[in-house]
């Protein structure tokens, strides 16, 4: 029986003994650092389960906090928080439950923030149509995906009818 513990540890039941089979540790320091020495410290990911409208508020507040720590401008903070709000709202409206992951990211030139919105909901039958501007611009009707894409710098969506949806979106600092 596999259970996933709170910090991502996989626990394996072995004859009534619970044993740690794998543990992912952040590696950064040298002295006493288990395993290899990493060049970049592993970024912390925050996961917010989405199940109610209160979770929408929680997710966008967390997103705003992380973006703030990364040094985004005040306007960008609102853009990120708004995007998270819309993505979380989609989960509640269409899938009932899902999760939002918020993660600082780095590439060769910039720092940024990555948001992943996941659900096991009904999925989108026609993703292309959903991404067309005008499909859902009326406030509150439809999915607002073109809007989210405008708010952020990068936007990827994977959705299959009957198999849920994953949206990955990123914003880079300047």
């Amino acid at each position, binding site marked *: 029986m596999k259970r996933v513990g709170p910090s991502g540890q996989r626990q394996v039941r072995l004859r009534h003994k619970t044993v740690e089979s794998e543990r992912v540790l952040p590696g950064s320091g040298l002295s006493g650092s288990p395993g290899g020495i990493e060049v970049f410290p592993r970024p912390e990911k925050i996961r917010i389960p989405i199940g109610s*409208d209160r979770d929408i508020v929680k997710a966008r507040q967390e997103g*705003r906090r992380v973006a703030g720590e990364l040094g985004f401008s005040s*306007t960008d903070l609102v853009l990120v928080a*708004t995007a998270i*709000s819309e993505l979380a709202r989609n989960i509640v409206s269409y899938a009932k439950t899902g999760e939002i992951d918020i993660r600082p990211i780095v590439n060769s030139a910039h720092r940024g923030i990555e948001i992943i919105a996941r659900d096991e909901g009904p999925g989108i039958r026609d993703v292309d149509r959903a991404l067309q501007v005008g499909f859902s611009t009326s*406030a*509150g009707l439809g999915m607002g995906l073109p*809007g989210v894409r*405008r*708010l952020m710098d990068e936007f990827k969506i994977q959705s299959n009818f009957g198999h849920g949806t994953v949206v990955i979106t990123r914003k880079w600092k300047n």
Partner: protein
Amino acid sequence: MEVPILKQHHYLIATVQTALSDADLLHLRNALLQRVGEFRSRGVIVDVRALDVLDSFASRTLADIAHMIRLRGAETVIVGIQPEVAFAMTQLGLKLEGVATALDLEEGLSFLDKRVATGTAKLARPVSFKR
């Protein structure tokens, strides 16, 4: 979270807090509708200066509030949308069309005074007015 609603002469002023959930917004809508009827208010100001995000649901609900309150014969004005929030709203395509907006409480009151004085607030049922 309950949104505080103050009565100022013929106006109602609702001041929204930062962490406003969908349920809170709907409560606000119902509370305003009820009180507009109860006090026969002529105008409603919804002060959103503390809102850090105005998303599609909030936008639609505010528009609903304005529409429903107009049916009860009163004008609504949304005040205090922050520059960054206004920017994000237009990126998302949220325009609050047909809803009056003003910079802050003072401007909102000034707007309502003008509207009410010129009698442009429509009444749901014709009522004789003595001025």
